[in-house]
């Protein structure tokens, strides 16, 4: 576990960088979180994915896998990897302040 300061709040994160407590997340943390993932230019399409991850987590209790993201976020898989080259579900979950999505596909 490690702690970082975002938007004036101390945030506890897991060793691999996911929020321990997703309720601490606010949208103004997104630019800094994205930068830490190597994403300098946040576009509307990044936001579509980040907001989708967040709402899926809040309604279902876990974030979607890449396949589920591609099927239901409105952003196709090819574009997802262009937006989040280091793994769309994983990176978008970190930026959306939710736990790592579980699933093999």
């Amino acid at each position, binding site marked *: 576990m490690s702690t970082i300061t975002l938007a004036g709040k101390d945030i506890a994160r897991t060793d691999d960088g996911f929020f321990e407590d997703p309720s601490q997340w606010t949208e103004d943390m997104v630019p800094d979180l994205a930068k830490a993932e190597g994403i300098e230019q946040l576009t509307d399409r990044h936001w579509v994915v980040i907001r989708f991850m967040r709402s899926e987590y809040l309604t279902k209790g876990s974030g979607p*896998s*890449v*396949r589920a993201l591609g099927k239901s976020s409105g952003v*196709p898989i*090819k574009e997802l*990897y262009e937006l989040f080259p280091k*793994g*769309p579900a*994983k990176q978008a979950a970190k930026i959306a302040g939710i736990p790592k999505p579980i699933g093999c*596909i």
Partner: protein
Amino acid sequence: MPGIEKISIVISKGSLEGIYPGLIMANGARAEGIEANLFFTFFGLDAIHRKRHEHIKLATVGNPALHMATWLGGFPGISSVMTHYIESKMDGIDIPSIPEFIEMIADTGAGLYACKATVDLFGMSKDDFVDQVQDIITVGDFYEIAAGGQIIFT
């Protein structure tokens, strides 16, 4: 300790249970941000064969883990029935069909290659393969592409 950054997976078998593990591992690697390449050789080429990849069958003979008598596994139609059964179970947990999976893996940015020696042996050409296949390459090319990463043979 640094994590795995690159893998190259060889798919050498043409049965359903011979193809899926390599596809799942390649797709999973990309989801983790790991660079991935797939190299199809011997009967594994069926996975990327335009006409054959929709008809991949589960091996029902010589597979003791199916817990089925060998003579029954060889009975006409049993392989199709068992394949249909396992495919419907896979669909239930949202595992894509092989053609869809190949397309999806290509979309993740993984490289897909066919083995030149087998393509020559079977008298095939690039036209026999789905569009996602980037090239027909030699084993030497494969090692060049795989350089700096780990190699998994399935």
